[in-house]
């Protein structure tokens, strides 16, 4: 039977976040979706690993907020949240710590009693720190048996430099010297009103907002606590890491570019999608579908507060590592020399629009996108602008971007596997 007609949504409507300010100046962004009987509340602090004074202290602080507070033990907090079916989620990256709570609307107030404690009155008990250290150290040592972890860590080092805050990684033993004192210090200096934004979504009634406001207003004021100026990046273009017994090699390749605020970021997202951003991408077609070298390959633009880069990652059979590297290089070269056919580009544009629609279908996704926009200094009208920017890219523009940014000599390549 013949294909039914299809339409491409010309625009994606997203509501603007309503803005409020807590008494201490903490901005509160509200995405009210009253048709959902849930509340999601996120506190984002500029407290990622670049802001830490000791290895692992940033992640420890975020992960241990709920491990004991002035009025509750860790067990009581967990009990209280579980009893009302609420949950929380900690996410930490190099720049930020994201503390997110989810509750059914009818139990928001009870959940807020816990949120308040976790956020405002954590005590980081020494006994809990000890358990945390042992647990995390073991997890990390397991992670580091995987070639993809090895490649990921070495790739960051190769791109930014061994001691650059975006490149550095620490030995597992550094967990042993992590102390409650260090964690408390990190909390005091980074979890302040000046470093915080609040984003909430779901059914935000006036009572809910009032409570959120009260919690945000109680976050202590402190200094803005800037980050020390980053050292110059020291880039190494090739790294091979031997890992005995690996039956696959993990490959990471990419190059330093710019953060999301740069005018070429969105078109470079289009280019990275063509290369490896979806199931039918060029690298996937080549490495997986035509050659069967890999189970999957992926490329994307990655955004940090003060940097951005393009990266691709895959795991391939040990015996085809060289061939896979050649094929990747060849696909990049084609982007630099040939125009992307119109049909393929149209496909990629629709994929990117569809991805946006899926993320924005529901209150939680809208909140995530809103948060990302705010952290980049945008508001939600940026979504429509980005979509237009995607739509307006041309094959010529993408080829010239590939020529400008993807020269072979500028690429960083890291391979971890068993080469002996």
């Amino acid at each position, binding site marked *: 039977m013949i294909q039914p007609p299809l339409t491409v949504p010309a625009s994606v409507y997203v509501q603007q976040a309503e803005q409020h300010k807590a008494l201490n100046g903490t901005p509160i962004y509200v995405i009210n979706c009253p048709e959902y009987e849930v509340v999601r509340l996120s506190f984002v602090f500029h407290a990622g690993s670049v802001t830490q004074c000791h290895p692992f202290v940033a992640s420890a602080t975020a992960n241990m907020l709920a491990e004991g507070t002035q009025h509750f033990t860790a067990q009581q907090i967990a009990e209280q949240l579980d*009893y009302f079916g609420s949950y929380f989620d900690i996410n930490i990256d190099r720049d930020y710590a994201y503390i997110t709570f989810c509750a059914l609307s009818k139990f928001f107030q009870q959940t807020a009693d816990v949120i308040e404690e976790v956020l405002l009155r954590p005590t980081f008990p020494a006994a809990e720190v000890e358990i945390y250290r042992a647990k995390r150290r073991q997890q990390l040592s397991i992670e580091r048996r995987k070639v993809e972890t090895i490649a990921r860590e070495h790739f960051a080092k190769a791109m930014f430099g061994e001691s650059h805050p975006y490149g550095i990684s620490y030995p597992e033993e550094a967990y042993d010297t992590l102390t409650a004192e260090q964690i408390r210090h990190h909390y005091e200096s980074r979890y302040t009103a000046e470093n915080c934004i609040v984003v909430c979504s779901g059914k935000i009634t006036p009572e809910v907002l009032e409570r959120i406001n009260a919690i945000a207003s109680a976050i202590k004021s402190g200094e803005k606590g800037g980050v020390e100026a980053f050292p110059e990046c020291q880039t190494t273009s090739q790294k091979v890491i031997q890992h005995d017994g690996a*039956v696959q090699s993990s490959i990471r390749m990419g190059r330093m570019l710019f953060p999301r605020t740069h005018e070429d970021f969105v078109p470079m997202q289009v280019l990275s999608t063509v290369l490896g951003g979806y199931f039918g991408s060029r690298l996937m077609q080549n490495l997986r579908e035509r050659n069967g070298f*890999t189970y999957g390959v992926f490329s994307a633009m990655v955004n940090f507060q003060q940097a951005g880069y393009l990266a691709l990652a895959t795991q391939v059979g040990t015996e085809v590592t060289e061939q896979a590297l050649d094929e990747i290089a060849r696909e990049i070269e084609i982007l630099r020399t040939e125009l992307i056919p119109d049909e393929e580009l149209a496909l990629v544009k629709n994929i990117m629009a569809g991805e946006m629609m899926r993320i924005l279908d529901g209150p939680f996704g809208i909140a995530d996108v809103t948060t990302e926009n705010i952290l980049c200094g945008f508001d939600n009208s940026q979504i429509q602008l980005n979509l237009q920017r995607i739509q307006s890219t041309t094959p010529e523009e993408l080829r010239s971007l590939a020529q400008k940014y993807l020269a072979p000599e500028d690429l960083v390549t890291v391979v971890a596997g068993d080469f002996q």
Partner: protein
Amino acid sequence: MHPIFTTSSMIKYKQTTLRNGLTVIANRDTASRMAAVNILYKVGARNENPSRTGLAHLFEHLMFRGTENIPDFDTPVQMACGENNAFTNNDYTDFYITLPCDNIEIAFWLESDRMQWLNLSAEACEIEKRVVIEEFRQRYLNQPYGDLNMLLRDMVYTTHPYRWATIGLTPDHIADASLEEIRDFYRRFYHPSNAILSVSADLPEERVFELAEKWFGAIEDCPHKAEPIPAEPAQSEPRRLEVERDVPATTIVIAFHMGDRLSEDFYLGDITSDLLAGGDSARLYEHLIKGKKLFASVNAYISGDVDCGMFVFTGQLLPTTTEQEAETAFWEEIAQLQAAAISDYELEKVKNKFEANTLFGELNVMNKAMNLGYYSMIGDLPLINREVEIYRSLTKSQIADFSKRVFTPENSSTLIYRAK
């Protein structure tokens, strides 16, 4: 204690069966602009021949190889701003597409096409076999603990095909699968009366049925007699396997046989696993990680299979813990359950959490479409709205009885996965 959750939402649906035997289920979701189209085939690894395992999963991959009419499956989905994927488990194979509701007919067109005209050329099969073998290596051979579940299944089951994981017993089974075997598999399992089509979207149910009739109504059914699946004989003696691997931490697993998906055992097993490991306030985490500091991580779960399944305890030891201590700790937890040492509050908590998770799960169209297909497959579609009620009705003495009956040494299989 009275339940604090008084109302629970229901998934409303309508169901019909086409003349060729295809089951069609429709749920109307007025809040979403996206549609989810799910098609479940009643075939999984349990339907495989012991000398040709991994075929159901390989076949899931082949379903994306296109047809004469639609040579590339993914492109039309992506042109329609949609996304698609699939998974295989021991019981069934599931394919799903989410896309803007305006483009829903594209999904019907694609799914009906590949139900009839799949391209099973020698070349397509060869490439897909290589991809699956890479998946085998990436996920099972090249990961720390990658073979743990394979070892466990092989010990717990002597006869039933749950003895092997979905990926199969060995990459050789996949490599050696003949074109004729693959084509025969398609004829036997991929036809209307062996499939369930479920849709969640902002469309009247009748419209979904019309579309189903239009796209699937003319497909001829070719029913095959289902091969009986050998039942697992009752276990009468403890089983034990000790292996040594190059991993950083020793892991201990104790598994027990329990009842099937439609038996009361399923709910009793599920709630027992929640008491033990559902959230940070659950027993194993509080007692064995926080209290006795024996493990870095610990879990209890049910396999949740259609046929008689497994109840599994698993824990990763801290370096200071002996294997004996770890095993004893699990059996002490079991003894407490058998003595019905459970407070009303604790039981209420896991019930509340179950209900909240059910509500959170109903927020998106994909989960709903997938669940409708699943409940229809297990043979009791209305059960989708009764689970919370059944869960609510369970008592302490039932949990104790279950624990006494299931958690016995004779019914246990212990795996010591020792760090070298």
